[in-house]
Structure formats: structure tokens, C-alpha cells
């Protein structure tokens, strides 16, 4: 036999268990979750001649506010930033569709040295959410 507790959303169960003990339902504090854009690099790790464009996609799922009245916030990639390993400055990549939920981004680079350079990339969304940093070493190819 299936227990009724397995079929109810947790928020309803919380109300049932509290019903006998409390007369005032506490107001849940809204929590905002926003993971920020997910970066996917699509440029091959080897760049012919060391000079070219690095590109990829940035996808934003939007955020959500917790609690019973939770809503989903608008998704949109605000900017994609990149940084060479060892540098301190983050530079802006060009977005094909700024403020949209999914966009292509790209920027041009010159890679020198026999082992190339590692580049870190991250995105921010229009709600202020910051995505994870993605790193990849790009090498000068023949």
C-alpha cells in the first residue's frame, strides 16, 4: 500500500504536521536561486597559427524564488567574460544575442608559446547570477 505521505508535495505535508500544533503559519522567507549561465566552449583546443576566434554558447535557465509563492525569474545572458591565466583583468566577449536565454559568444585571441595559454570564461545573467568558470588550454596549431 502506498503511503499518502509519498504522494503529497513537501509543502502540504509541512502544513499537515503543523496543523495540530500551531495556529499561525510562519511566512516562508523567499530564497532566490540563480545559477547563472552555463558556458560551453566549442572552439577546438588547437588554433591554427595561434590566431583566431574562440567561441561557444552561454545558456541561462533563469532563477526562481522559493516559498509557496515562488516564481521563475526571467532568463537572459547579460555578459560573458574571459581571462587569460595569470592575468587579473576579465574582458568582455561579444554576444550574438545579448540578454537572451541562449547566445553564442566569441572573442579573438593571439596564442603564443609552445604550450599555448589557458583561458577562463564565465557568464553573468540579467538577474545578477554568476555561472561557473570554465577553463581550457588553447594551443597554437599548425
Amino acid at each position, binding site marked *: 500500500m502506498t503511503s499518502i505521505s509519498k504522494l503529497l508535495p513537501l509543502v502540504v505535508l509541512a502544513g499537515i504536521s503543523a496543523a495540530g500544533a500551531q495556529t499561525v503559519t510562519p511566512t516562508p522567507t523567499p530564497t532566490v536561486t540563480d545559477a547563472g549561465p552555463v558556458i560551453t566552449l*566549442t572552439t577546438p583546443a588547437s588554433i*591554427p597559427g595561434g590566431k583566431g576566434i574562440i567561441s561557444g554558447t552561454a545558456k541561462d535557465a533563469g532563477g526562481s524564488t522559493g516559498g509557496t509563492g515562488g516564481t521563475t525569474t526571467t532568463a537572459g545572458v547579460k555578459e560573458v567574460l574571459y581571462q587569460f591565466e595569470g592575468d587579473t583583468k576579465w574582458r568582455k566577449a561579444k554576444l*550574438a544575442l545579448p540578454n537572451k536565454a541562449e547566445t553564442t559568444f566569441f572573442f579573438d585571441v593571439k596564442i603564443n608559446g609552445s604550450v599555448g*595559454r589557458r583561458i577562463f570564461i564565465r557568464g553573468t545573467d540579467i538577474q545578477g547570477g554568476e555561472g561557473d568558470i570554465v577553463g581550457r588550454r588553447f594551443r597554437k596549431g599548425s
Partner: protein
Amino acid sequence: MKLPAFARRRVAGIPLPSILIAAAVLIALRSVPPSSKKPAAPPTAAAPQDVSPSPDAPTGSPAALPVSPQPAPSDPKPASTEARRASLKAAIQEILSTLQGDARLESLSPLLAEWIELDAPAAAAWAAALPAGPFRSDAVGELLLHWAAADPEKAAAWLPGSGSLDPESASTLAGQWAVSDPAKAASWAASLSNPADRTAARAAIASSWAARDPLNAAAWAQSLDPSDFPAAATAVADAWARSAPARAAAWLASLSPDPNPALEAAAGTVVQHWTEQNPGAVSQWLNAMPDSPQKDSAASLFALAAAPVAPTDAMLWASSLADDTLRRDTVAGVCERWYDAAPDEFKAQIPAQLDLLEESALRHGIYEMLYEKDPEFRLTLLKIADGDIPPPGADSSDAPDAQ
């Protein structure tokens, strides 16, 4: 810590200490005679388990240098192999304990090539056992470059079960393999279950293939599923545009009669390479396009690519873009590239360019750019714009009365 002058010298972009260490190691390796009777190092026991942990992964366990199954007693060169193995272990340990960052990788690269030749599975196992982090990715990448050039099928068989398969390693292996056999590399890429790995591998194949045979590479890219097509098409466009940008542009235009945001990076790479080779042709191509977001985007890319060589033309293109945000970002981007390429020329000519910019937002974009790059000149430019001081080269009689 300040390094002595000789330690900061670079030759062909490589730090001098790295070159010296790598040279010493290679000399030591090659000094082992083929028939050396030097006692073999005990298998794995003498592995550098005392290797200094990488600062990239400070909490990881130091990796041991494994060995493949030992050769049978009838092998004619066991002592030589063991001696080389021992030298490699010592050399790698020395590098790991003394160098960091790119210098460490530069010095390791020839040793990994040597190790792959000697015992590829053991080298691969060592790299895969490194603590997770950027250094392991670097080491696996270097290893795959060498291994895929020598024996791509064995490298491809090893990677998926190694724990090191990710888009970076998939791209490195597939791209190197496609240099010699794009069809087999494509077949391997199709077998990858993770979409991100597969997309990265296919883009790398497209790039390597298109560098040698753009028509077949383009046809293959068009046969891919929609999730992998934009990355592969961008890689084809990039490779093709390096040798025949007008053909690459025509191919891209044939793919999508309407603006396709997923292919904007492809358009960007074509415009960039074409501008470097023949900016006049790009300008004509843009002028022949009907007004559209696609034209705006291409013109923005053209302006950015042309900025270092024809900055005033680039400023004209940038300031004529229809989209407000794109126009502001492109003007600022052109100025930044102009400044980077020729700062003195930029400082001399930008005041006159500012006069041509009617929108204050465009001028603010330039001031913002200078705020980080050259705050002193930014203040000077603001004074010039306010008429407090004359622009460079102006007749002093035009200057405001200082009384």
C-alpha cells in the same frame, strides 16, 4: 620574489630556465647508451611518489609513475628501456618540484613525448592519476597531442575509460587524429555519449579537416545533428577563411538565408580573416548587403578587425551601426584596439574623432575604456573635450585665453 635577469629572459617566448632544464633532461636521456647495463630501476617502487604536489591541486595525492607490464627476459633492450624510464622519472620529478605554470608544462612536453614513445600506457596512467585540476588537464592534453600523432586508435581507446575524458581532451585527441584520418576520428566522435564531449570533438575534426579539404569538411559538418552543427560549421568557416575567405563567406550565406545567431561566431571568424587579407573586399561586400541585423553584426566585426590597421575607417563603420548597444560597444572596442596597436597615434587623433561623435553615449564609452587603460590621458581628453586645453597639433592661437 624577484627573479634574476637571466631567469626572466625568454627565447622564442619560452622562459630561459625552462629551456635550460628541458635541454639538460634531454641530453641526460640521450646519453643513456642503447646497450647500457645500468641496473634497472625497480618497477613502480622508485616512482616519484614524493613528487611535489601540484599547487593546482594542493589537496590531491601525489601521483606515482606507473609502468606497463615488464618486457619478457628475451627482450633485447630491457636495460636500455629501464634506464630511460628511470631518467624520465627523475627528470619529471625535477620539473614538478622546481617549475610552475606554463614553464612547467613547456619543460614536461618533450619528456611526455619521450615517454609516449617508450611506454604510452604508463605515461597515460601517470597523467590520469594526477590530482584533478588544470595541471592534469594540461598534462593529459600534452600527452594526447603526442599519442594521437603516433597511435591515435590506442589513445582513443584509452581516453573514455581513463577518467580524463572531457570536452578539452576530446577536442585535443579528435583534432590531432583528424589530421591523419578524419573519417576514423569522426566515427570515434560519434561514439561519445556525452553531448559536450561529442560537440567538442566534432568541432576539432571539422577544423583539422577543413584546413586540408574544406569542401568535404563542410559537407560533413552539414550532415551533423543541429546540436553539433553550429560548432562544426564555425570551425569549418574559420579554417576555410584562412585560405579562401570569400568562398567561406559564400558557403555561410548559403547555409541560412536569414540571420542565424548560432552562426554569428562563424561569420565573425570569416570577417576577421578576410579583413586581415583584404579589407577593401570586405568593405565592398558589406556595402552590397541590404540593411539588416546581419549586416550590422558583420559591420561591427569588420570595424573591430580593421581597427588596428585602418582605425578612422573602423570608427566610421562603428558609429554608423543601427543598434544602439552594438554601436556603443563597437566604438569602444575599436578605440581599445586602436589604442593597443598605436597608442601615440590614438592619442593624437582621437580628439578629432570625438568631435565627429554626436552621441554622448559613444564618447562615454571611450572615456570608460580609457579609465582602465590610461586614466591620465582620459583626464586630458576630458579637458580637450571641454575646451580647457587645445587638442594636440592645434594652433596655439585657437587656445582659450588663459587669463
